[in-house]
């Protein structure tokens, strides 16, 4: 009888392999299960609001009429936050990674990371108690000088507690996320590519345009999308800063509302169908965030051939 010597193996090493692969599989499945569980909960709890007669929903015109303005309000606040934060964050990240002297760079990096450590309720309190009163004269100026633009139409809010203020506070909150992710990406730019650009006679800025930004583009998109996710879902800061109301085009009047703040402000006193309505609003927010992430992935994968990963 001959035995194949290759069939015998070290038992212990195999067991370790199995345990490890089992553990990673379980971790992967757990994420899916949690995501699915949350989605299922949201759908089941939201159904009563979705099928209820229009008159029973808050506002009296059905769920869609209720949710549409606050969806728009959420998007407005998030877009304001990103329009302000994204360029600043990318600029700060570039400064830290490619311009600043090394000691200043690490110090600045710490400070930016500290911004992320401030609780959102603190941001909210700061926005409501400090930023809003300080900024309201600027709104008055905008209303009288740029009032012909629908977004700056007067009369400006006297308290300054507007969607624009909320957006500015959100931008400060998403700034550290986008900055630290972008910085990490920029630091990973291969030296080879930077030197290739410099050797062609590129200035520092041209080198950044040629080598750093194209290499970092997928990372910047992901960072901005993560920031968008935070801006969309941020509750406390908006709830404290924004004096909410009906949907208005003007960013400097009182009005508008975001989904997260709407849920937070109304949930404690809600009961029955009202709870369902708020959970359905949460479901809508969930879908928006999911869509944002999928679009981000699609944008990244569209240029995979040129990503440098191959």
């Amino acid at each position, binding site marked *: 009888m001959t035995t194949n010597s290759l069939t015998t193996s070290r038992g212990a090493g195999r067991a370790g392999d199995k345990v490890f692969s089992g553990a990673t599989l379980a971790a992967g499945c757990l994420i899916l299960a949690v995501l699915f569980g949350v989605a299922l909960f949201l759908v089941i709890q939201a159904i009563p609001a979705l099928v209820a007669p229009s008159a029973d929903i808050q506002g009296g015109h059905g769920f869609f009429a209720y949710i549409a303005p606050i969806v728009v309000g959420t998007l407005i606040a998030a877009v304001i936050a990103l329009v302000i934060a994204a360029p600043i964050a990318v600029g700060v990240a570039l400064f830290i990674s490619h311009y600043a002297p*090394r000691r200043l760079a690490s110090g600045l990096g710490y400070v930016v990371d500290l911004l992320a450590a401030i609780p959102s309720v603190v941001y909210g309190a700061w926005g409501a108690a400090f930023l809003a009163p300080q900024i309201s004269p600027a709104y008055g100026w905008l209303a009288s000088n740029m009032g012909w633009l629908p977004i700056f139409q007067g009369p400006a809010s006297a308290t300054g507690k507007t969607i624009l203020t909320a957006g500015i506070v959100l931008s400060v909150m998403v700034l550290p996320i986008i900055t630290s992710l972008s910085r990490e990406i920029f630091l990973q730019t*291969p*030296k*080879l*590519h*930077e*030197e*290739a*650009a*410099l*050797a*062609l*006679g*590129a*200035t520092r800025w*041209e080198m950044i345009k*040629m*080598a750093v930004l*194209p*290499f970092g*583009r997928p990372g910047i998109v992901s960072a901005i999308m993560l920031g968008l996710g935070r801006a969309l879902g941020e509750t406390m800061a908006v709830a404290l800063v924004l004096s909410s109301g009906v949907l208005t085009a003007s960013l400097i009047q009182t009005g508008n509302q975001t989904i997260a703040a709407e849920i937070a402000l109304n949930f404690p006193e809600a009961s029955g169908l009202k709870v369902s309505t708020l959970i359905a609003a949460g479901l809508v927010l969930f879908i928006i965030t999911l869509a944002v992430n999928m679009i981000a992935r699609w944008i990244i994968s569209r*240029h995979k*051939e*040129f*990503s*440098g990963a*191959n």
Partner: protein
Amino acid sequence: MSKRIDVKDLNVYYGSFLAVEGVNINIEAKSVTAFIGPSGCGKSTFLRTLNRMHEVIPGARVEGEVLLDGDNLYGPGVDPVAVRTQVGMVFQRPNPFPTMSIRDNVLAGVKLNNKRISKGAADTLVEKSLRGANLWNEVKDRLDKPGSGLSGGQQQRLCIARAIAVEPQVILMDEPCSALDPISTLAVEDLINELKDEYTVVIVTHNMQQAARVSDRTAFFNIAGTGKPGKLIEFADTTTIFNNPSQKATEDYVSGRFG
């Protein structure tokens, strides 16, 4: 379209560490000059001082003069960016920009400084540069594909095409074949032979046969020991360096009795 380089008493420092000491060398226009020597002897460091690329490393600085047809690269008010448009460089590992197509890679240097170039002129330049790098026939049907999809040897020739597209006076090559297989190496060596009709070429190589094959003049660098500065030991015609060197250290190195 080529200039000579004269180096006078050049010391290169990394911070307070003297990496290369007292180099004097005269590199003729339209010739191929090879730098050989053991690892760590400072030949790559010295090569980089010829287009101020050593300044990418924090703390690196030089003393002495590098004259490009009489103009000191380290004179007051000289912009390293302007130096590098005259003295191009090809690196050890092929480094085409991964996010750019083959065509855009060739045009990368030309489009710098906001220079506008018409599509027709760009097409002509792309073809001329790729032909100059012996790459045109292999890539002419896929100019819009990413440069990173090419083989290593093709990528390196693409980098050479990118370097010659800006019409430099001098091309520096830092071990351009060390990451390539023998066939690709041969293709690049053939190319170097053609390049010297128009450009001054300086090449660092670990491969002594390569130095013997491609260069007109050869410089041998050596280092006395760890922590000591690298020095230029001997600079002469390539045949002299390999057959009849005047220094014992050179003879030991080229005959393989060293390192």
